[in-house]
């Protein structure tokens, strides 16, 4: 198949992964662009017949982390600024009633966020996710579990505040709960 056409087919998934990771359309598109250029130059290293989506996700994920490191160096409180921007700037993707969820997702450490996205939304298997994140399958599993627990913690506190304190919606605060902004 023409590599241009093949890469084109993967763009929606790459964008979805990038958007889920960083939460901003401009940055997500930069990441996808970066990934496409890298993938193009490395096409000869891709083994035909293997999983191209996982290969592209790996490149994108690495681009995300090097971008993150760069930004951390540039602006110390980039994460806080990003969360604030997200809360006030709905993207053009239409209805944003998951914005609370989005903000909660961004409170997760990137390794947990990425594992949760890969397993819970992108349809990757644990094995594929482990390869993409360059870690053991067990590590992916524990990151996903921790991500779910932490989101439950954040969102249950929020929904309790929203619906008022009644007998059925007390926030579950486990012994694992830590201060939320450890930065």
């Amino acid at each position, binding site marked *: 198949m023409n590599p241009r056409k093949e890469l084109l087919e993967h763009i929606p*998934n790459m*964008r979805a992964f990038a958007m889920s990771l960083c939460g901003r359309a401009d940055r997500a598109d930069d990441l996808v662009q970066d990934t496409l250029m890298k993938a*193009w130059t490395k096409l000869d290293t891709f083994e035909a017949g293997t999983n191209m989506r996982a290969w592209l996700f790996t490149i994108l994920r690495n681009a995300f982390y090097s971008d993150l490191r760069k930004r951390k160096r540039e602006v110390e409180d980039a994460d806080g600024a990003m969360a604030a921007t997200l809360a006030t700037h709905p993207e053009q993707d239409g209805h944003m009633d998951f914005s609370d*969820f*989005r903000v909660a997702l961004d409170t997760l450490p990137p390794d947990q966020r990425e594992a949760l996205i890969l397993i819970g939304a992108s349809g990757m298997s644990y094995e594929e996710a482990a390869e993409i994140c360059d870690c053991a399958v067990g590590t992916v599993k524990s990151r996903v579990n921790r991500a779910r627990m932490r989101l439950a913690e954040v969102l249950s506190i929020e929904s309790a505040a929203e619906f008022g304190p009644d007998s059925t919606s007390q926030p579950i605060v486990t012994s694992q709960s830590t201060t939320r902004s450890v930065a």
Partner: protein
Amino acid sequence: MNRAEPRVAEDAKSGAGLDDRLQAHIGGQLKSMYDSYLNAPIPDRLVELLEKLDEVSRESGPDETRGSDK
């Protein structure tokens, strides 16, 4: 130790409905967020980028001798 139920799952079960509902809610939100990104239109600049890459590599001919006929 093999196939040991994760303690988290047990806690969730004994912690009654709220935790389960919350996990279902989280899963649903995550998927609908991802799907909304997945179904968003592809920006022109990405399509154009691929076209340019394709043109350039055709001109320079990375693995064929095609481009070296000058």
